[in-house]
């Protein structure tokens, strides 16, 4: 199983010279199994770069199949949707799995995103590939995604909640827990269950512990939460994710160096770049 980070930045894209090594695109992560089956998590701006690569292959000919899992629909996790060019090619099969955060169904939320005021696409129905939206019911559940064993569970995110995911394939396990803030008593059982024994845990670490003090309640984790989940779940490696738009490359370097001193678990900060073998 391989993972490729196309977008690792939280909340807001960060172009500019101080964000080149970790990358400035908002969340988009591609997971590929050994047989070449892929699944995409989140549709942040990072998907615009993935799209360019996909269009060179079967997606450019309308023969691509892609399951997409959405943690939630805050803008930084869906803002790449209108620019994901495989949607524009008839024949591609793209299925979006996600949950409704409010009473509004997921398809209606995405429809609002593409309404004529906000987008020249005027609605999901104008994406030539068509978009199949699969609702995920809140609560721990398993999903059918070809080539992977996938389970999903809800995680607290400020005043709302998101989905976390666990992927198993080729004897390896990856957990994706982004946009999560635990109660003061610590990580929730759902989070620990998703991460249990994972070879790689991708975890929200938007803030350093010092920054977090003034940002409690914003729905994001301090680095210590990522470490805590990693240690309590016995993961092989943890990738800090959803970096603050105010963290420059140098600041992320510092966050990583500090974090490494506090745990014996292998730890990196997620960065845009080539695929990584798990």
């Amino acid at each position, binding site marked *: 199983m391989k993972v490729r980070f196309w977008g690792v930045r939280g909340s*807001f*894209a960060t*172009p*500019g010279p101080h964000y*080149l090594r970790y*990358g400035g695109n908002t969340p988009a992560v591609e997971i590929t199994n050994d047989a070449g089956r892929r699944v995409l998590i989140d549709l942040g701006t990072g998907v615009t770069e993935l799209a360019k690569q996909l269009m060179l292959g079967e997606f450019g000919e309308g023969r691509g199949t892609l399951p997409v899992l959405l943690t939630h629909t805050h803008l930084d996790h869906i803002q790449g949707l209108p620019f994901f060019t495989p949607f524009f090619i008839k024949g591609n099969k793209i299925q979006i799995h996600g949950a409704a*955060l409010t009473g509004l169904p997921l398809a209606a939320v995405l429809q*609002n995103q593409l309404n004529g005021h906000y987008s020249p696409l005027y*609605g999901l129905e104008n994406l030539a590939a068509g978009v199949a939206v699969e609702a995920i019911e809140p609560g721990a559940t398993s999903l059918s995604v070809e080539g992977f064993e996938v389970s999903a569970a809800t995680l607290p995110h400020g005043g709302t909640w998101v989905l976390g995911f666990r992927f198993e394939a080729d004897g390896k396990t990856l957990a994706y827990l982004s946009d999560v803030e635990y109660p003061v008593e610590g990580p929730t059982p759902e989070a620990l269950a998703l991460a249990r024994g994972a070879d790689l845990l991708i975890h929200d670490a938007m803030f350093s512990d010092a920054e977090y003090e003034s940002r409690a309640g914003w729905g994001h984790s301090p680095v210590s939460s990522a470490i805590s989940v990693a240690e309590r779940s016995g993961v092989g490696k943890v990738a800090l994710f959803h970096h603050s738009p105010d963290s420059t490359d140098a600041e992320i370097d510092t966050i990583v160096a500090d974090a490494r001193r506090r745990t014996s678990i292998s730890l990196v900060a997620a960065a845009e770049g080539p695929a990584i073998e798990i």
Partner: protein
Amino acid sequence: MGYNRAEMQVTFWGVRGSYPVPGPDTVRYGGHTSCVEVRSDDGGCLIMDAGTGLRALGQKLAAEQAAHSAWHYHVVLSHVHWDHIQGLPFFQPAYMPGTRISIYALRAAADELQQVISGITRHEFFPVTLQAVPADFEFHEVLPGRQLSIDDFEIRPVALNHPFGAVGYRINADGTSLSYISDTAPFTGLLHKQHFLAGPEEASDDDRKVLAGMREGLVNTLRGCDTVIFDTQFLPEEFEKFPHWGHSTPDHALDLVKGLGIRRLVLYHHAPGHSDKVMDTIEDTYRRKGNDLGIQVVVARERMTLQVGQVTDPGVGP
């Protein structure tokens, strides 16, 4: 006319169209979407569009605001496609008590403007709704042809040719003038309305009349303007492929502004795929084409400030 102090000045906080593009290929021209700050001689401030460039502008303004109180910002929108509004929820002064924010936008459909703007911070999209932030918001409907006065700016809105409708603005202040023309397709070919275009659509005779009227309105608005910022997203070969996407080329812009006594044309709303290298080529090509027409062509770059008005500006771009 101003004399030795700068007259109006304009600073570019986001110059990109469609979506923000981080990465090594956009470092010099910038990757943030549309947002421009306009300042008059005595400190009046207009914010033209609220794309992702607005976040950094907001951080600057919040730092200035900390020393004062009861600030009033004027955010003037060309239209409400995402690339022109997505910075708004990240505008730091909105979270400071005492801030007033007036939003000016074209009413492009029967929906109330307030509803449309509030729609971008629905709970599905953003944790904090516009109604819940400390700042007071006011909404002002813009009508092409109906002049607005904001602080010491006299502003004339003009209709543009863009999906669902967009509006450009000529801004007069300090005895000089600046125009902000984004987003627009050229005024030949097709007329954008309020439905999806899968491909180019043939213009009817009525459409052609509307387009000719739009063009005339824009030409009359721009005549004699010092500096014109123009949506020039596409290169000609790209426009050939996407003539129905609602954007122009630098050639369209030059063709429209030539002979109108315009001193300077600023190329703006760059395609997300145009790397710094491509932008260098565009600058080179169109500077020369501009010279032939007696128009100074400048390519917008993030954080670039231009003085508007001929008296104090030697006419050198950065």
